[in-house]
């Protein structure tokens, strides 16, 4: 637990020291969503229909953009070696890194979504649901992305490969998440979609860190 806290504060502090790198995905998310009205139509009724898709694809791309830094910096300067060779529980360190990534990317994306959603005609009543869906979804994306980032650490063309590996894994998250968002916006009952999304999140939280820790041991070789 001490290890988890220490590494989490380290990563958060590093993120604060590099505001450019930290804010980039969030700015990207805002820009992409703002482009849709310009490319499609300013009519809110039309935008409302595509809002869930826009928000989810935007969040997915923004999260992918930030994943490349999740482990690569630590691998480049030898920090990862120190973590693998010196720590008792690699699993808690993986969880700490994922938690830091989520706090710096996933959570801001989810919190920003209502603001951007308002521009896409999302009604105020739907905002809590939109945030909730993105919170669950971005947790999954951080976890899956960490596994994919570990797999591609030593690879040539790591960045593109990371995207290729993460997208198929993220399909269920996007389907359930976007559906939950859509049903919330339309005012229907989104409970079913939320349950499925939560189930995927629990499954990912249980399995992905184990795989990531095992992969990291191979990746530092």
């Amino acid at each position, binding site marked *: 637990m*001490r*290890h988890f806290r*220490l*590494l989490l504060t*380290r990563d958060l*502090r*590093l993120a604060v*020291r*590099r505001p450019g790198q930290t804010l980039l995905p969030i700015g990207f998310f805002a820009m992409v969503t703002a482009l849709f009205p310009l490319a499609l139509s300013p009519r809110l009724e039309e935008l409302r229909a595509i809002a869930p898709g826009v928000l989810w694809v935007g969040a997915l791309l923004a999260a992918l953009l930030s994943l490349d830094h999740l482990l690569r910096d630590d691998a480049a*300067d*030898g*920090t990862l*070696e*120190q*973590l*693998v*060779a*010196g*720590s*008792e529980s690699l699993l808690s*360190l993986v969880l700490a890194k994922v938690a830091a990534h989520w706090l710096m990317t996933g959570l801001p994306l989810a919190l920003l979504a209502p603001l951007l959603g308002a521009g896409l005609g999302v009604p105020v009543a739907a905002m809590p649901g939109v945030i909730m869906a993105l919170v669950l979804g971005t947790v999954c994306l951080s976890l899956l992305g960490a596994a994919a980032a570990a797999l591609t650490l030593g690879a040539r063309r790591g960045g593109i490969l990371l995207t290729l590996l993460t997208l198929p894994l993220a399909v269920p998250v996007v389907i359930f998440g976007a559906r939950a968002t859509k049903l919330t916006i339309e005012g229907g009952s989104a409970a079913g979609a939320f349950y499925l999304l939560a189930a995927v999140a629990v499954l990912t939280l249980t399995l992905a860190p184990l795989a990531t820790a095992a992969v990291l041991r191979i990746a*530092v*070789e």
Partner: protein
Amino acid sequence: MGHTDYNIGMLDVVLEVRDLRVLRGERTVLKKINLWLGAGQYLELRGANGSGKTSLLRAVAGLLPIEAGGVFWRSAPLATDRSAFRSESIYLGHDAPLKADFSAIENLHYWIGLRRPLQRQEIEAALTKVGLPAAAQLRPTRQLSAGQRRRVSLAALLLARVRLWLLDEPTTQLDADGQAMFAGLVEEHLRGGGIAVAAMHAPLTPAPAAKQELVLAAA
């Protein structure tokens, strides 16, 4: 701690490498490596570039898979149980694992802090001991020279307070002063019953009394 050290002649063996074989890709980089080290001993790994010095250190540190043979820490094979070894050893690679945005103090706080809780005074004392001036301790490490950064990682060795040091060319980038300071640190570590294994290009001077040398030839 459960495992007893055993004797070969006069020596209490703490670290043993038996018939080690290590592959990189499909190439054998190390084979039939045998060595025994006891308390207070210093082993210098010598050999040309590519002779496998780094691979040997990394294999012992558990960062490279072992193809055949084994590494034993206090008679226990590391292949099955690494936990004692992990908390009693530290590996220092080519590059100091320092974050450019953090100061030397912050870096050590997080790096060695993951091994044991640290006081700020301890960190400052260690940094002063390796010759990093107080003003430089607070600057982001990106503003430090290569030699100063190297000194920060030597301070990490002191703070880790572990028995076994595995060092990959620890004196590169150090000036003459720094080299002598490092030799002093090793001497002190050995006197306290520690063990050090270092890959070196030039022999450490002044050489510690209990020095062994292993010259690796390209496999």
